[in-house]
């Protein structure tokens, strides 16, 4: 029996083992063929597919194939940039990014209707530290200036800013962001609440005091004959952040009040209280970090009151609706809830007559063109003058002898069409790109009113240093 068993066992087991091996090998072969084919197909697709040059959703120019130099080769930049070009300019990039955002959205659920992105924990130990109640006792407004400072006569043109792009790149929440998280100015974080993206603001009283001193210096330089205004626009956080979360972050209202107490001779335009009664209207984009044109209109109305200039009623404007707008906040965060809930971009065309001339940052003539241009996709906010880099001169049919210079970040762009019925001339200067001495420029062009118009992130963030730079360069 034992002998038979010994003979039988291998005969019975062998086919099973052989079968298993064969099946294993067959499936391994299938695996290799299938995976190799996918690798080959994707490699070919990436090799011959048309590579995009611009990302509309991210609002940026994509990486370019680098040009060779021995320096860039030896420091590793050349090869790194080739790989970067290859990775950054994938054909159908935005489609794949949309797929990624949907995949990410499937990795969890919303809580309280909220999705968070990035550093939303970047504030000070106590975000309420920079509130008026705490700070009022610690800081004293500066003494009123009694003498004008020496007017700078420097007219050297320096090009401190090098970034340039055919696609306007917005910078408010991320550009000078997070200079120092411990300082708690900007976090780059976004909180999406009920399909509305809200960049998280922490604020800084010290930075607000700096801002005030910068604009005060303009008043001191320009003297009594020129009115200087400060319009610091709150962002969506002030109106749409759920209360229990708002308490965690900086209060824009308190930061604005802090700025106000340090202004000296500069007229404050209270955009916060001008916008507050309209919070149920479309005054802020849900998918973009900018305010909506209607929000800018109410702020401009408040400014016109302070400047004592005429102001056209909204009914006199032509309303234009661009549907399907998904702005910068989606490009930055890739939160699918923003992409899946586009909004209407609604702007207003003024009815009076005006001409618009565009100059480069050194005030060399560039072109004449419309004030409101045709923009697309995520760049719809660029409807206003197309780009931040130009110095823009608007000459209107208003003959009141008033010439306005707007020193602004991108928030200021939307104010311009609201003021074509208020000033005879408007010069639009983006503080981040302007290459001349601002005081000389204002004097040379007979400016009677200077409006500093930017959002809280810029005023109490890194962008405000440009206000001083263009005054002193």
């Amino acid at each position: 029996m034992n002998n038979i068993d010994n003979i039988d066992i291998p005969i019975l087991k062998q086919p099973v083992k052989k079968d298993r091996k064969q099946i294993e090998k067959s499936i391994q072969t299938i695996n290799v063929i299938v995976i190799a084919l996918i690798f080959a197909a994707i490699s070919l697709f990436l090799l011959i597919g048309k590579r995009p040059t611009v990302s509309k959703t991210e609002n940026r120019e994509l990486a370019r194939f680098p040009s060779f130099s021995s320096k860039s080769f030896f420091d590793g930049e050349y090869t790194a940039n080739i790989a970067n070009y290859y990775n950054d300019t994938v054909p159908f990039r935005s489609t794949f990014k949309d797929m990624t955002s949907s995949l990410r959205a499937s990795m969890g659920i919303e809580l309280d209707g909220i999705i968070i992105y990035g550093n939303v924990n970047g504030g000070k130990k106590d975000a309420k530290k920079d509130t008026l109640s705490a700070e009022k006792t610690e800081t004293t407004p500066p003494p009123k200036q009694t003498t004008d400072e020496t007017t700078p006569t420097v007219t050297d043109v320096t090009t401190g800013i090098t970034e340039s792009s055919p696609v306007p790149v917005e910078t408010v929440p991320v550009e000078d962001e997070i200079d120092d998280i411990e300082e708690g100015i900007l976090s780059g974080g976004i909180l999406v609440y009920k399909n509305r993206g809200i960049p998280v603001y922490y604020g800084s009283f010290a930075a607000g005091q700096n801002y005030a001193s910068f604009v005060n210096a303009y008043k001191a330089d320009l003297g009594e004959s020129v009115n200087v205004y400060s319009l610091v626009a709150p962002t969506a956080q002030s109106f749409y952040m759920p209360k229990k979360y708002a308490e965690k972050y900086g209060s824009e209202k308190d930061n604005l009040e802090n700025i106000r107490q340090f202004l000296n001779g500069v007229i404050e335009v209270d955009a916060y209280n001008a916008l507050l009664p309209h919070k149920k209207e479309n005054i802020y984009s849900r998918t973009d970090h900018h305010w909506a044109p209607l929000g800018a209109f109410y702020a401009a109305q408040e400014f016109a009151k302070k400047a004592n200039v005429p102001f056209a009623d909204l009914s006199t404007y032509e309303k234009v609706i661009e549907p399907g707008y998904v702005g910068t906040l989606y490009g930055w965060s890739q939160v699918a809830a923003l992409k899946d809930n586009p909004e209407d971009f609604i702007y207003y065309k003024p009815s009076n007559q005006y001409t618009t001339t565009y100059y480069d940052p050194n005030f060399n003539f560039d072109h004449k063109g419309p004030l409101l241009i045709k923009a697309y996709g995520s760049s719809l906010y660029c409807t206003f003058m197309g780009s931040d880099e130009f110095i823009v001169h608007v000459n209107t049919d208003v003959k009141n002898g008033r010439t306005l210079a707007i020193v602004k970040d991108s928030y200021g762009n939307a104010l311009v069409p609201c003021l074509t019925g208020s000033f005879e001339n408007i010069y639009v200067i983006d503080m981040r790109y302007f290459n001349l001495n601002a005081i000389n420029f204002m004097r040379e062009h007979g400016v009677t009113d200077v409006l500093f118009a930017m959002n809280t992130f810029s005023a109490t963030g890194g962008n405000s240093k440009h206000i001083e730079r263009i005054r002193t360069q």
Partner: protein
Amino acid sequence: MTFSSLFFLYFFLPICLICYSSTQKLEYRNIILVIFSLIFYAWGEPIWVSLLVFSAFIDYIHGLLIHKFRGKVWSKIALISSLTINLGILAIFKYSGFLVTNINELLSLNLTVPSFKLPIGISFYTFQTISYTIDCYWDKVKVQKSFLNFLMYVSLFPQLVAGPIVKYSTIEKEITSRKTTISDLSKGFTRVIIGLAKKVIIANNLSLIVDTILGGNISSLSYIGTWYGAIVYALQVYYDFSGYSDMAIGLGLMFGFHFDENFNYPFICKDISEFWQRWHISLGTFFKDYLLYLPLFGKRRKYASLFLVWFCTGLWHGASWNYIIWGLYFGIFVFIESFLGKKKIKKIPMIVRHIYSKLIIFIGFGIFYFENLKSLLNFFKNLFFINGNAFIDDITKISFANNIILILIAVVFCFPITKFIEKLREKSTKMLAVLDMSQVAVNVALLLISSIMLVDATNNPFLYFRF
């Protein structure tokens, strides 16, 4: 060049594989691997590729000298010379800045702090070449007489920049005699895809949570938020590093090399000693083989060597005090466990041992995260609820909800699921066919999802690149 990039996966690797398969001759294949490995390295380090070649050449020569003078004093001198040069290079590039900074602070001096750019992977390839010369001296491996073959071992791109630390003895025979079977190729592809998915789908997305929770101001973080951040960071490092090791092992298989495993489900450990037998195994093995039993400390050598190993483990990870503290921190627990003895530890209820080991590990990763000592202190205060911060905060709650499925996946795959599947495979031929075909489908899905996600993850290098 990073493995988890479209450029590597769909440009470099296919060209390399095509060239490699274009010849059956192993000599040519080795030449092709050397060329592609040097291109791979030079892509990120066009200058320091010369250091890699220099380092390989030095050890190649020292190997020959050790062999020639075997049994004589010159053999020992050659070994010491090799160790001095290797560790000297590492000390200059990685530790000189740290050393001078500390000397300046300690002695109130103002010496110029050297600021060398750390060549990628120097910690890995230096240890590999050291393993060769020591093993050569101990006569554990045959001397490699071909510089090309030795250069291939040192520069082999699958394991060059972030490990695992492949000892020469592991692939000694395969350098001159290897064959890529269909089984190797299939397992290699599968391993590469699993590693890629671990990195791109899990680790990269966990890193977003870590950025949100620990990337802000730690001093304001809640108690639960701090623990949550530390746990997610531990998971991130695990998936990032083990993902890279999977890809390295998979790529090795594609070229016929069989590297040792570098991870073995570390989070299922019951004590810290076991954790380190399961985590970054190649580093632990290196220290165990070459450092632990050095006769440096006389009678007390067991414990003194143990602390030396843990000091070096920390220091190897980075020239910063938090890494040294991190290493010694684990060393203390390994010491306590060793002091108590295995019998006593085994008497402790299993659940207690699991809780103990996880607590120590997660706190340890917090130390690993914070290079800033002030933040590290705040981290500890938060962990033990002595900061006076909230018990739990809303952002932590939202972050957890927003990523609950990702976190569940990350936790589940910390357990040895594949071992369970392996057992199922053995049950019947039908089961084998079903499971293996499912693996093919999973491979396709993971490869496509990872590739799509890579479009949005440009320039997201592996964490262990910095070591």
